[in-house]
């Protein structure tokens, strides 16, 4: 299969790639040109950043950025700490009930917080956290996916290294910190990229639990901004759309290999 490629196939592959990029290219075109050129593609169309300036002025995107950054940071830090501790327990300690406990953790891979919106809303309301950033983060902080990935990695840590650390007098947490965590770095990177992408893009749950500019992440801000009732110009909405996806897109272009490998590693498990 890796041999010579038939020219027809090469053309088809490129054609598909162009089709795949077209919607994105179109978004950039529309965002970077005056509204009059939103559907007429002419090489002489003037370029402009006006749409971005207007979007930035018409809605508190700076605040939305800040909210999203706080959200993904909170989620990531929480997930890394909780998954590391839990994965360590499953990978290195033999204790009664560990099998059942692990099965109960895995349940979350199938029934994610995304579908438990009704009851989770009740819980967040009871905790008095509605319309806050922690409310968006809380249901996701314990990640079955993170626990699973790290447990796999931790299980492959050579016993000799653990023994050596113990001889030097390290306790359970010392061993975790000095032996396991450094060796699992690729897994942390993979999990981190997937988690940040997921929560940067997440929409339905934040839409449900937030109600104000102070808590809304970018995705929800974009939906509010782009709602047809607001009567905002199409080109301005595309500019806002581009702003919403730009940071991840730039990160992806810069670290393409890392992204693809992370998604792959995370999915194959």
């Amino acid at each position, binding site marked *: 299969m890796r041999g010579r490629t038939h020219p027809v196939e090469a053309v088809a592959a490129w054609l598909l790639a162009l089709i795949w990029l077209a919607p994105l290219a179109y978004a950039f075109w529309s965002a970077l040109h005056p509204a009059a050129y939103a*559907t007429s593609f002419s090489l002489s169309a003037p370029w402009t950043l006006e749409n971005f300036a207007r979007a930035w002025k018409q809605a508190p995107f700076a605040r939305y950025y800040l909210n999203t950054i706080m959200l993904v940071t909170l989620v990531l830090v929480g997930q890394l700490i909780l998954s590391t501790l839990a994965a360590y*327990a499953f990978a290195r300690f033999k204790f009664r009930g560990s099998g059942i406990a692990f099965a109960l953790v895995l349940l979350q891979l199938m029934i994610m917080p995304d579908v438990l919106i009704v009851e989770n809303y009740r819980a967040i309301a009871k905790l008095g956290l509605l319309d806050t950033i922690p409310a968006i983060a809380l249901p996701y902080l*314990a990640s079955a996916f993170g626990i699973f990935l790290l447990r796999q990695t931790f299980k492959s840590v050579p016993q000799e290294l653990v023994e050596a650390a113990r001889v030097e007098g390290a306790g359970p947490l010392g061993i975790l910190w000095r032996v396991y965590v450094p060796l699992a770095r690729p897994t942390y990177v993979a999990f981190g990229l997937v988690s940040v992408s997921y929560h940067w893009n997440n929409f339905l749950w934040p839409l*449900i639990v937030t109600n104000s500019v102070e808590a809304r992440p970018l995705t929800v801000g974009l939906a509010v901004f782009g709602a047809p009732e607001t009567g905002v110009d199409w080109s301005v909405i595309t500019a806002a759309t581009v702003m919403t996806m730009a940071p991840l897109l730039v990160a992806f272009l810069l670290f393409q290999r890392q992204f693809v490998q992370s998604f792959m590693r995370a999915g194959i498990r």
Partner: protein
Amino acid sequence: MAALRHPAAPGMSDLAASSPIPERRARSQAWWNAVNAWLLLLPAAVLLITFTHYPILATIRHSLFITKRNGTEVFVGLDSYQAMAADPIFWKALVNNFWFALGTIPASIVLALVMAIWVNRNMRGRGFLRLAYFTPTVLPMIAVANIWLFFYTPDYGLLDQLRGLFGLAGWNWLGEPSTVMGCLIVMVIWKEAGFFMIFYLAALQQLSPDLDEAASIEGASRWYTFRRITFPLLMPTTLFVAINAVINSFKLVDHLVIMTKGGPNNASTLLLYYIYEVAFTFQDSSYAATLTVVLLVLLSAVALIKFGYLDRRIHYQ
């Protein structure tokens, strides 16, 4: 070595088991192990129970009660389920979910496989191709929906402008029950195919090149090699991708919020979106719980297929 170890050192079980320590010490070691493990699990367990296990049970409970105006709960048994069985929108959402899955999954899988085969070749510009195919995966669904919303806008939108070139009249793509689902399916295929591609790519890269070589020496055509060798070897990947795609098809509703709101006339609504509407627009949380139970049953069925059947088969291949 065993004698050198500090007796109080919370031992790793596998080592402890192999060393000849007196029974009492072994027992205290096991106890100490368990305490450590549960302490490590505690933070994650509290959050998992609060936001996954308890909500699952609470959903089932709430589906059997209704809340009166004054806030008291009344047990109504399966009444809500009967109401659900008589609710045409529920059935519409369920059927839509089925068509949505059928429309998106096989097409994305086939495209993903084709993309992976191309990207795996020594083709010029394969880095660019991989980039192009994968990019939609990293975009927020809500941004994607915004972009595609414009393609489908009647008259002014890109699709109708194209039709205009051929002298065809404008068409309200998302406003007509006959086309709305198809439009959303095309968009989701675009969003997902590149994601599935990377799993095929990983699998292809692990296949031995000898297989291809042997096949070509035997004079097998490329199509024959693919059909009889490559594709069967990729079966575990196909099953894995298919399961994930099915789960995704129940979760993907972000786009409905800004593109169609489930309309026109519920032609594009999906189960999770209907749950969202019932709970947060119509404020009927007990009926929303009943609907959620259906979604949980469906997801559990997928889980059973995955863990009970497929994982075992994949393992032995």
